[in-house]
């Protein structure tokens, strides 16, 4: 028990029992549609497996380029949607700090997405394989998390889609194709500049979203 500013005893609880903690964790996860997000990630991974199972895709690494661009985009969109809260006003009166939960949320969902998609893509890891998939997934989630802060969770897929589309469509340009930082998502795998760009986006977006939260949506008086 704690003492409030007026000297009244307030009911700050002791550590909850494991059963209570699990139930509360489950409530939080369901409030953020985490089960649906995980289902969407599994679907994205299965879609990747199916698309990558064609022989020409397996043999020619450049045929996997659409996969390592599209699958992370889907995963990032699902992750962004899970940042939405239906009750921003009530969440705003929470006794709890939100940033540790948002940070854990993004790190756990991000790790799950990267792992599932890395396992789904075949071929040599250094030629549009698992490494490129992990890098693109982290970068996409970073942009989406930052987008959620700017435009709200439900539209957070838009900045990522715009960026991915722009880089993908201009990939034939040698300037973009050779620019490992700007065109990081089109690099085959181990390029340091591409990894640095993707990781910087992931760290920045995740930190921003953890600190600020997704922009509230709906009417505000």
């Amino acid at each position, binding site marked *: 028990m704690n003492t*409030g500013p007026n000297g009244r005893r307030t*009911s700050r609880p002791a550590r909850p029992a494991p059963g209570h903690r699990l139930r509360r964790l489950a*409530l939080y996860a369901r409030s953020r549609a985490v089960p649906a997000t995980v289902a969407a990630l599994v679907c994205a991974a299965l879609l990747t497996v199916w698309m990558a199972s064609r022989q020409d895709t397996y043999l020619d690494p450049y045929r996997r380029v659409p996969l390592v661009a599209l699958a992370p985009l889907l995963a990032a969109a699902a992750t962004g949607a899970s940042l939405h809260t*239906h009750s*921003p006003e009530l969440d705003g009166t929470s006794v709890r700090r939100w940033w540790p939960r948002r940070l854990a949320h993004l790190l756990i969902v991000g790790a799950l997405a990267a792992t599932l998609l890395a396992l789904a893509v075949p071929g040599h890891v250094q030629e549009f394989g698992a490494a490129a998939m992990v890098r693109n997934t982290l970068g996409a989630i970073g942009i989406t998390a930052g987008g959620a802060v700017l435009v709200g969770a439900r539209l957070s897929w838009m900045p990522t889609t715009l960026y991915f589309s722009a880089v993908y469509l201009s990939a034939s340009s040698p300037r973009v194709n050779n620019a490992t930082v700007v065109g990081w998502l089109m690099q085959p795998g181990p390029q340091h500049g591409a990894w640095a760009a993707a990781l910087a986006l992931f760290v920045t977006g995740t930190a921003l979203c953890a600190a600020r939260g997704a922009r509230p949506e709906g009417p505000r*008086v």
Partner: protein
Amino acid sequence: MNRPDTTAVPPLGGAAHPTGTPDGHGLGGSGDTAVRVSGDTAVRVSGLTVRHRRTTALDGVDLDFGLGVHGLLGPNGAGKTSLVRVLATVARPTAGCVELLGGDLRGHRERVTVRRELGYLPQDFGYYPGFTVREFVAYVAWLKELPGAETDAAVERAVTRVGLADRIDAKVKTLSGGMIRRVGIAQAIVNDPRLLLLDEPTAGLDPEQRVEFRALLRELGRTATVIVSTHLVEDVAAACTEVTLLEAGRVAYRGTPGSLAALGADGHESDGNAIERGYTTALRGHRAATGAGR
């Protein structure tokens, strides 16, 4: 925690109240008879200013609220919701000082302490469609850091008080608008708050539910400071101990519902009941005094 006697008032939507309902008195009835406890000021705001971009929602407001039920009245855009959101610690004021339950809101520690004893029903509280009533109220109990061992009982008590005990395991999305509003009231009282802020709580409730809700309000007002923002002057007349009328971000009138009703007694308006005429008279008087037209 100070837990009110839940048997004192029948739940909303529950069995009909026996004859001589608490809501049976006339306009200003409760306001005239209830005693305002001024020694226990739970809310004190001074020079409170809130701006939304170019619009000034509250303009240097000074107010204090003690134990009891306080009605916030005013036309659309008067600043009622802005005031409630600041008191709920959801919005930060542009200027001014806010003191809740003896704590200044500027520090995080004080804000957290206040939030533990705060209940809040926003206009749109945004329920989770997949949650049952029990789960949604438990979620808010979790937000308030209610001890896990107490949560189940607190949730059931709050849901029973709003008359939804028989629907506690129903999905919120399957409920009617009035029932959803009662779920909102249940989440606001799950932690037995000392400061309860309700923004348009009776919107969507049918007349019988409103009568029962007013009884619940009066009961809550015995142990807590309850601030009700509403357009419905009859709710204020029947349930509030004090009324504050806001207009264009300023306090236009403060008094009891009875005194507000008395203002209308000498007016030339023939429409509406006494408190509606008093409301109109006070509003027009304030506009005339400040030179504000509509």
